[in-house]
Every structure is written in C-alpha cells, then in structure tokens.
C-alpha cells in the first residue's frame, strides 16, 4: 500500500481521489469513504484550521500505518484541509480501499477516529459579529478511539 497523505488549504475532489485508488488495477473490491463537512451551527461563518507542519504529516502517516497493519488495504487516502473553511465545504477526506468491504469500512472508521484524537489540528470557530472560539476536544471522541484498543 502506498498511501496518499496531504495537508492543504485547497479543496479536494472526492470523485477524483476515489477513482485514483482503483485506476489501472482490478484487485480492489471496495472503497469506503468519510467526508467531513463544515456545519453552520450557531451562526458559524467559518472554521479556521491550524496544524503543526511536519508533526501533523508524521502523525497521519503513523495512523495510516496502524490501519495498514490491522486491515489488508490496497490503498488509503487522507486529505485534511487547513486555513479558512466555509460552511458546506469539506474539511477532511478519508478513503480506505481493500479487496473486501469489511476491511475497507472498518479501516475508514478507525482512521477518522484516530485522526480526530491523534493528529495535531486545531479548529477555531468564527461567528457573525466577529466573535471566535476554539473548539474543545470531546471525551466522546477519545472514548471511541480507545475502543479500537
């Protein structure tokens, strides 16, 4: 497996990234995806995502490697945006490809749970009127990650 890992300001293309995981090969039986979107809760105008250049990419690579040890993946893509993201836009894309659906679906869920709790990104919410607030980590997310063992 040769994963695609990118941290970028630009939007990503779900269709193109999905197609890339099976292009030129006939051993891929399924591709599971998670697309995280920016919601407009409480009048939110934008999310601003910050990361730790270098460590973030390393942390994602480590999480993808863990998934690769647990499930027989034929491919994997993690793209996480940083900078200013507007409601309705994509924040994160996780794709897991395998010969069979169970591995793809489980690996995809594992990847997003681990990314939420172990990849250095921080979200700041901007609201109408100029107020802002840092998003707090949720114990529920940490508990989900612990369940993977």
């Amino acid at each position, binding site marked *: 497996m040769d994963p695609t890992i990118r941290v970028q300001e630009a939007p990503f293309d779900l269709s193109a990234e999905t197609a890339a995981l099976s292009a030129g090969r006939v051993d891929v039986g399924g591709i599971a995806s998670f697309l995280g979107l920016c919601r407009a809760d409480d009048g939110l105008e934008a999310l601003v995502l910050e*990361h730790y250049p270098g460590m973030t990419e390393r942390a994602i690579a480590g999480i993808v490697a863990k998934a690769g040890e647990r499930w027989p993946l034929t491919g994997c893509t993690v793209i996480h945006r940083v900078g200013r993201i507007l409601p309705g836009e994509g924040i994160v894309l996780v794709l897991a490809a395998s010969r069979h659906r169970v591995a793809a679906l489980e690996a995809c869920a594992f990847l997003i749970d681990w990314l939420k709790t172990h990849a250095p990104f921080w979200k700041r919410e901007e609201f109408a009127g100029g107020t802002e607030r*840092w998003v707090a980590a949720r114990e529920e997310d940490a508990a989900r990650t612990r369940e993977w063992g």
Partner: protein
Amino acid sequence: MIRVLYFAWLRQRTGTGEEEVSPPAEVHDLGGLMRWLSGRSPGHASAFAAPAQVRMAVNQEFCGPDHPVKPGDEVAFFPPVTGG
C-alpha cells in the same frame, strides 16, 4: 537552546508561535519547562494557567510532562487536538 512552538490558544496567549529559550540546568523535563516558561510574561502565565488543558510534544512526538528536554530539542505546547 530549546526551540519552543505554541499552537492555537497557547500561541494567542503567549503572543508568539515560536521562541528560542535557554532554561537553567534544573529544568530537565517538560513539566519543569512549562513552569519555567510561565514566568516569562503574563501571557505565558495565562497560557499555562491550566496545565491539564495543555498537551505537548518533543521533536514532533506526543509526550507527557515527565519527558526529558535538552538543548537542541524542538518542544511544542498546544491544546487537545480537534481536527477531523
């Protein structure tokens, strides 16, 4: 010299994203560095006022407050992560 990076509200409170520091020899772990850095400015004191809310890394690996620090290290302080 130790290179110290701050992210999210720790960056806002300290007023800097990055600084080079030379703590005294008795500062030998992350917890000690955090306490020493708190004395640098009121902003630093505010950033580290709730140590339970601060996560840390040494040379781009997550570490706990007992992890040793030495000259040449890259140390980062940040809130619990909220990506995804």
